[in-house]
């Protein structure tokens, strides 16, 4: 690249755009081969990490916690006052869920979780975050226009409800404890867990009797 005094950043241009990959699949294949060959990464560890978050750790964990809280008032109380220990009772916790706080929805209060600065998310109870949670539209607007964001998700809240937005700026990870839907008194804990969606535990939806499960 030739030097162009009218464009002082021209010499930086090539470097800046190295970050944008023409074909990430090829690049990652080469990186994996290098890092394994150098002994920096163990391929079995790689496979186990991926398998854990594709198949083992996900919103089902959070749904079980919520369903337990709905059916067991003593557990609900422990969950709100000592969340890490209460979550560990069900066998969950650890990476990106070391310091949990449960925020409880009520008829008067609706909670919404975001990370405006990056993509912090309670992996231990919800798995890895969906793309929309990590996206600029959600991160930028959740704090300034939470009601507009909720409307985009199909949730219109009355003015009388207080909206609390939790920006995950530190290592504390937030999980919304949704309201138990009316008319579910006859359901078992497992049946209730099936109503608890990921979206309800982030706060962009409510749990409904017609919930489509935690994967939705």
């Amino acid at each position, binding site marked *: 690249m030739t030097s162009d005094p009218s464009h002082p950043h021209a010499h930086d241009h090539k470097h*800046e755009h190295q*970050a*944008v*990959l023409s074909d*990430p*699949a090829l*690049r*990652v294949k080469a*990186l994996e*081969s*290098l*890092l394994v060959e*150098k*002994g*920096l*990464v*163990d391929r*079995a*560890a*790689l496979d*186990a*990490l*991926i398998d*854990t978050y*594709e198949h083992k750790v*996900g919103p089902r964990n959070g749904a079980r916690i919520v369903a337990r809280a709905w059916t067991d008032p003593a557990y609900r109380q422990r969950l709100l006052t000592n969340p890490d220990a209460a979550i560990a009772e069900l066998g969950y*916790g*650890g*990476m990106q869920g*070391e310091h949990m706080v449960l925020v409880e929805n009520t008829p008067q209060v609706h909670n919404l979780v*975001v990370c*405006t*600065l*990056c*993509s912090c998310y309670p992996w231990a109870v919800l*798995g890895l975050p969906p793309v*929309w949670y990590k*996206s*600029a*539209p*959600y*991160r*930028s*607007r*959740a*704090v*300034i226009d939470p009601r507009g*964001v909720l409307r985009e998700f199909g949730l219109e809240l009355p*003015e009388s*409800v*207080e909206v*609390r*937005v*939790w*920006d995950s*700026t*530190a*290592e*504390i990870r937030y999980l919304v404890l949704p309201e138990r839907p009316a008319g579910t008194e006859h359901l078992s804990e497992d049946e209730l867990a099936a109503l608890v969606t990921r979206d309800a535990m982030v706060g962009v939806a409510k749990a409904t009797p017609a919930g489509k499960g935690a*994967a939705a």
Partner: protein
Amino acid sequence: MNSMHDMGGMHGMGPIEYERNEPVFHAPWEARTFGLLSAMNCWGKWTLDALRHQIEKIPAADYLRMMYYEKWIAAMVELAVSSGLATRAEMESGIPAPGSPRLTPPLTGAMVADMISQGAPSTRNVPIAPRFKTGQRVRARNINPIGHTRLPRYARGKVGTIERDHGVHLFPDTNAHSLGEKPQHVYSIRFTARELWGDAASPRDAVYVDLWDDYLEPA
């Protein structure tokens, strides 16, 4: 740093694109990238805060254009090179330098489950007194460091109320730059929507931000 990552309160980013039945990874390379960086983190050559800062340093236009895991690749390349785990020529060619030693990975397949279930707590068990009390009114300082910080721009200079003391945690602003953990209290601070966004905002709504002692002053 006041870069593109600090986007809370911005307009103009468009509608939220929601994908039904979204897979955990959208392509095998995303999964491999997730695994590679998670495994590379286990060398302990950089902190989570340093990793976040590396991603923040991606130029703004690229930051908005790149897919999430592309940012992970970019950060992994830079951190591997700057920490000396690999050379830039190696990271670009995918071929180990002639005669370079073969190392032993710190994380094996058998260790993954324990590593995940233990996590990496950011709390520190040191007797450090909180500078503020629950219920106290505090102002987030107006600071604009060029390094890493977790004090978002939209909260700077704003007054809120301490709702909860989360205990003593390491401090990202120093921890990201190998300047020590500087453990201190983190609080959940309630800022009313009107304090942050003006009179047009809902009189009921609030944003809770987790902030460290060093970010705060009495109001």
